[in-house]
């Protein structure tokens, strides 16, 4: 049996480990999904991103494991399929990066526009590569995703003067919509929800959490549902939180807009912008299209936020 070590684990992954034993329900080259009770977590290699349902280990490849293999967790040792034994004694509990909040004295304007333009241009560029642009192909899935994003913008994110958010019943069609482990529709919703938490839109977040807990379990896969449940707690992969923090820093520095002096541009704006661009790039690279669609969800909220903030001002 190969001995290895757990490096970091998320709080929801810890809940799974507390069940002490369970089965491996999905195996990929670099990660496996473990069940414990009704919960799931994802255990992977060192390069696996930190997140609430993830367990990062020193293992380098997990494809020797098989679906149905058992796992057990006793005395801080996690045994996988009689092949691997991971010591958990020195592992760190991953926690969310400290949130950077939007400034209350935010002066909307060029900074908002700048961020939105930046994200849109990256999505456009990546969309050509990943064939994820609605309208680029005749794919029914892409048409549908496009339709639901418009629905979110026009319905969910248009609460009117009362600020009472309501999820249109039709939006259940977005749950589980698309290819892969976490269907694109779920990724978009996750992006919307985490952005709602991040940008302090509690009414939007509450409304989505209630709706997801009612509808997600039966409309998507158990793996995707596990990530959505984590999002209901305001947690997602650290790439997303890092990107949102940098986005907020950029927006809070509305003094550093594109009309600043050449000196400001060079010394103040560019470092933040380049960090943000890098963070957006990292998020987009997550999974095949998970990061991409999550960013689509964030963009919807950002536009909503820009609209309401500008209106107020």
């Amino acid at each position, binding site marked *: 049996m190969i001995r290895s070590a757990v490096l970091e684990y998320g709080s929801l992954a810890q809940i799974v480990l507390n069940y002490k034993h369970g089965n491996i329900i999905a195996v990929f*080259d670099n990660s496996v999904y473990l069940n414990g009770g009704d919960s799931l977590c994802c255990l992977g290699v060192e390069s696996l991103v930190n997140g609430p349902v993830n367990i990062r280990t020193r293992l380098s490849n997990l494809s020797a494991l098989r679906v149905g293999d058992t796992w057990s967790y006793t005395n801080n040792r996690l045994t996988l399929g009689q092949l691997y034994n991971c010591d958990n004694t020195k592992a760190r509990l991953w926690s969310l990066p400290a949130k950077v909040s939007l400034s209350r004295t935010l002066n909307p304007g060029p900074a908002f526009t700048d961020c939105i333009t930046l994200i849109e241009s990256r999505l456009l560029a990546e969309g050509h590569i990943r064939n994820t642009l609605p309208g680029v192909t005749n794919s029914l899935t892409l048409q549908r995703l496009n339709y639901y994003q418009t629905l979110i913008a026009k319905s969910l994110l248009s609460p009117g003067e009362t600020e009472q958010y309501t999820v249109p019943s039709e939006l259940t069609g977005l749950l589980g919509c698309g290819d892969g482990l976490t269907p694109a529709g779920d990724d978009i919703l996750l992006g919307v929800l985490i952005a709602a938490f991040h940008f302090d839109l509690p009414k939007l977040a509450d409304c989505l959490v209630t709706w997801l807990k009612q509808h997600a379990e039966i409309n998507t896969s158990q793996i995707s549902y596990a990530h959505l449940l984590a999002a209901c707690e305001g947690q997602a992969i650290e790439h997303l939180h890092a990107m949102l923090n940098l986005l907020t820093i950029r927006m809070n520095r509305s003094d550093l807009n594109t009309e600043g002096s050449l000196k400001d541009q060079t010394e103040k704006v560019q470092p933040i912008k380049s960090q943000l661009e890098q963070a957006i790039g990292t998020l987009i690279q997550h999974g095949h299209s998970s990061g991409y669609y999550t960013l689509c969800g964030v963009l919807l909220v950002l536009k909503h936020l820009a609209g309401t903030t500008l209106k107020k001002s």
Partner: protein
Amino acid sequence: MSTVVNEVRKGFYLDSVALMRLSAEITSMGGIEEAVLMIGTPSNLQIMQDAGVLDSTGESASPNDLVIALRADGKSNANRALAHANKSLEGGALKSSTSEARARTLRGSLTAYPEANLALISTPGTYAAREARTALELGLNVMIFSDNVSLEQESSLKNLARQNDLIVMGPDCGTAYIDSVPLAFANALAPDGGNSADATRTAAIAASGTGLQEFAVLLTRLGGKLTHGIGVGGRDLSDAVGGLSTLTAIDLLANDKNVDQIVLISKPPGPDTANLVFEKLAACGKPVVACVFNQASDSEVTGIRYASDLRNAAELASGETLDRHDTQQLAQELTGSLSASRRKLVGLYTGGTLCTESQLILNRAGIKTTSNAPAPGSSASDSETAHRIIDLGADEYTVGRPHPMMEPLVRVSEFEQSLDDPSIAVILLDVVLGYGAHENPAEAIVNSMQQVTDTKDKPVVIASVCGTEFDPQGLHQQRDALTASGITVCNCNVAAAELAAEVINQQS
């Protein structure tokens, strides 16, 4: 007419990239109108319904199932595509093609392949010892392909291995067979080590490279079966190392029920080590053949059969005899066209052990040789009048250049110079086939032969081919090409050296 076929795989997860690639692959198959592979969420089922690819089977899917949905021109096209999808999903092809495990460290490799018990180290020599130590500490046996490992490091590694019931093969171990599996530069023997199940199962312990290859080839050609070939490295039997790996190998082979006899191939061991090794061999409980180059007969140990050369070792181990030509008569035929002024011999070798063996045979025939890698009885001095046997794989020929077994052109200039030299009577060559060797080593030799303008007065070229019909280059193809170009091809290195010696003696 369009046919819709669905299949549902319960609780089956595959990553998005693999799913989309398979989906695209199937769609591009002839007769396929539409193919969708998606998890069976209500939303996706609706998409499939709208796309006209869903049937009642697919409708039953749950969000945790994979749905393979096809619309094809006719049932046979649909079934063919479905079979392709299933084969891809079951065969692991999707997984391996997406990201084959490429561990960057030994630890990572072991994690990926926990059943592994041997590490092959092929790094620059400076780093080889460190990696070998890591491997030993991880409980792995080690084959060090790298050279430039110091004697102190070798000794230290082998001590560590012996303390932990492990073995270090090498350093500079170019060839090995473990459970009949060839490692590094090795010939492809017949499946399962060669020949019939009732053949005597032989295991060889040898220094490192072509000696083991030649023995393995000849043994299997004679009907024998090689189960293991352990390369211990050229310095293992020196007193400085004390034969640590050889001793471990003897222990392992003595206890291996799949080994009937043991063959040791080596240079003469250091005197202290010789006692240890031969006593252990004599007491191992299995028949032993020792082919120790230039071994003094008074140092032979009772109970061990001694072979004079590699051919003899293969014959003793197999109980069969390799075909012999009439060396004297063949030499007469070859010298018939040689002018009297041609008296010298040059050997251009790619294999170090074969080079040594030839020197010993020539010396035995009374022909004094010089060499850049002199065997006992040969001289290192390179006089104009001497018969020269050159090891082209030695450092002075390979620094900054590929080994001549990999790149035959390294030998070409020496070969062409020798062909043009009016004093040369015989050019002796080895051609080594097998994994790692050049894909067509005969080609460069044949090309040089074709450039000889004076076809009446040219040296005799004698070669042997170390190879099997299972080798990627093909034994008979290589032999035929050499023969067609006018080269005399012998069935082993010993026979080639003996023939060369006879030609030189007849010219004198």
